[in-house]
């Protein structure tokens, strides 16, 4: 299937009412959640995982993806109007977005954010389509050793890049891998770490784990939030329209931000938060008037918003073509597919074209919907910003409990959420990253299977990882990253 045939096919698929409705549901819920400070995309996706058990895997993926990029739109609304970023990705947007709102130009800032997000997502789609075709072609040559080496590289990259303490990051990844071992071992049928509980035979429930680590932990962290205040004047109509000199400033940051975002989004372990920070820094460097940044520069809203939306889409490249999630949100998406028995990989483009092209088309449709819906709906989102969190979180908790119960009909899972929530709270207290734990948990079984297979094929000789050029490349990159982070830690210690 050529790219254009694929796109047309995907648009046809995604516009079917039974699919379109989940796209709409995803983006609206995502925006809703993104607007509410205190619940991020991660928690929102965890909360919605139970719904995906009742729909087709294609619709599930399209809905969860919609929640992800919808949350970024919503997050920018909260960070511009209240300087309360609903998602970490949009924290950067508040640097210039909030000053703009204080100057009475909230409408322009919101318009810029939305237009830039749209531009970013369109460029992200182009990158996804190009890279995915190329990568899944290349990946058909991958063997078990290559996969195992690549996944280990992904985990090492995720825990070292942009982390202040690589050791703590690694520890979380390894704990996640270990939790992934719980349940029946696929190769031997032995029950590992189940301690006789039949509820654990299939392993720790991904929904319970995600809800405990993200849903419960985010609720706990925000319970004591005082009622919010911010710029809440009525916004709409002509206020949204930018001036001509604003418009002239936009194309540069949009293009640079999108390029940066799609590049870093596709790399494992970096993701959209880093790319929006980098895009902001880059814009400030290339600007002829860097002193305007932080005081309400429209470029400072445009660049990070383009970057994080482009990154959100290009992050699907490794997830769909290699079956390897680059960040924890992608790990959740992959987990949702695995629940349905769909294992993404290089063959998916051919074997399940409706999955890949349908998702690609839904990105376009969903982002267009966001642009069209959100400009008139902005008043509703602004009103929602005023809902006090103390009304919301008890309801969130109840929905969370019933959601996790609905998956298997076991009240054991509700109690498991409480236990995992306690663990998540303690991890947050000690500043360990639960996101890396989840990444390890999802990748654990895949790594173990490929590792065992590779060594079986290689007759127990670990050289199998160095004999194959692809695997050797990944091993080399892993060793390089490890060495680099050791040098960094050593330098920091010496500087003190």
């Amino acid at each position, binding site marked *: 299937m050529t790219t254009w045939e694929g796109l047309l096919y995907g648009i046809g698929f995604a516009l079917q009412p039974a699919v379109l409705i989940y796209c709409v549901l995803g983006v609206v819920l995502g925006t809703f959640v993104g607007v509410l400070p205190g619940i991020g995309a991660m928690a929102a996706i965890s909360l919605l995982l139970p719904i995906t058990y009742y729909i087709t895997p294609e619709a599930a993926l399209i809905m969860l993806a919609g929640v992800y990029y919808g949350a970024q739109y919503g997050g920018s609304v909260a960070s511009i109007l209240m300087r309360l970023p609903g998602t970490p990705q949009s924290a950067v947007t508040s640097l210039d977005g909030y000053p703009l709102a204080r100057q009475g130009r909230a409408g322009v800032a919101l318009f810029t954010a939305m237009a830039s997000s749209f531009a970013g997502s369109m460029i992200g789609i182009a990158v996804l389509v190009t890279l995915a075709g190329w990568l899944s072609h290349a990946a058909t040559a991958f063997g078990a050793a290559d996969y195992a080496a690549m996944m280990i590289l992904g985990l090492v990259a995720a825990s070292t890049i942009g982390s202040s*303490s690589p*050791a*703590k990051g*690694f*520890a979380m990844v*390894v*704990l996640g891998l*270990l939790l992934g*071992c719980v349940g029946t*071992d696929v*190769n*031997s049928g*032995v029950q*590992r*770490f189940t301690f006789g509980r039949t509820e654990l035979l299939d392993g720790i429930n991904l929904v319970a784990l995600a809800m405990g680590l993200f849903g*419960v932990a985010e*609720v*706990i*962290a925000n*319970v*004591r939030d*005082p*009622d919010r205040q911010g710029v809440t004047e009525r916004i709409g109509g002509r206020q949204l329209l930018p001036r001509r000199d604003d418009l002239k400033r936009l194309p540069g940051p949009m293009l640079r931000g999108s390029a940066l975002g799609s590049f870093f989004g596709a790399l494992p372990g970096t993701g959209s938060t880093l790319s929006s920070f980098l895009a902001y820094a880059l814009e400030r460097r290339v600007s002829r008037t860097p002193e305007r940044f932080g005081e309400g520069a429209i470029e400072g809203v445009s660049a990070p918003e383009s970057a994080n939306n482009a990154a959100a889409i290009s992050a699907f490249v490794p997830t769909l073509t290699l079956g390897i999630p680059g960040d924890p949100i992608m790990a959740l998406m992959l987990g949702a597919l695995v629940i349905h028995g769909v294992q993404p990989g290089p063959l998916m483009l051919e074997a399940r074209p409706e999955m890949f092209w349908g998702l690609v088309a839904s990105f376009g449709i969903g982002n267009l919907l966001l642009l069209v819906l959100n400009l008139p709906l902005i008043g509703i989102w602004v009103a929602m910003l005023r809902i006090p969190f*103390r*009304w919301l*979180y*008890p*309801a969130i*908790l*109840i*929905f*969370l*409990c*019933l959601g996790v*119960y*609905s998956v298997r009909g076991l*009240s054991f899972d*509700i*109690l498991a*959420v*409480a236990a995992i*929530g*306690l663990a998540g*709270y*303690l*991890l*947050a*207290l*000690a*500043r*360990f990253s639960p996101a890396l734990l989840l990444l390890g948990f999802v990748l654990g079984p895949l790594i*173990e299977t490929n*590792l*065992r297979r590779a*060594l*079986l094929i290689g*007759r*127990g*000789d*670990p050289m199998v990882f160095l004999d194959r050029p692809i695997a050797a490349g990944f091993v080399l990159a892993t060793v390089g990253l490890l060495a680099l982070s050791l040098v960094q830690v050593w330098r920091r210690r010496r500087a003190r």
Partner: protein
Amino acid sequence: MQRDPMHRDWPDILGGLALAAIGAAAAGWALAQYDIGTLRRMGPGFFPAILGGLLTVLGLVVALPALRRRSDAPGIEPLAALAVLAAILVFGLGLFRIGLVAATAAAVLVASLPAPRPGWGWRLALAAAIALLTVVVFGLGLRMSLPLWPRLP
């Protein structure tokens, strides 16, 4: 060098030691209970034993340097955590004993305890509203088979 014990980097020390303990326990359990196999034919114990060992080392790498370092106490509210977790337990344990309505209301009341606004009026109203919403959405709307009321003896 700081000698004040209150200002040690307790999060890293305790967190690292706890992880090391978990790792050692997992590795020990895997070695004792499951077949390790060979590198060529790994048994079910091989991967967890390696991971457990790795986690032990990493936990110590986090904890030991932290002994000589100071850090601010982390500022997350224990009361909020206690109330939220207790609410989930109340709901999970109560669902089949006192029914959906009472379990929801009780859980909401417990969860709302640490909210930054005094008074019982809004809490009771919130509990009633969420209980109603839950029954409408999950009981009547999604038709989940849950007992709504306490089972009469």
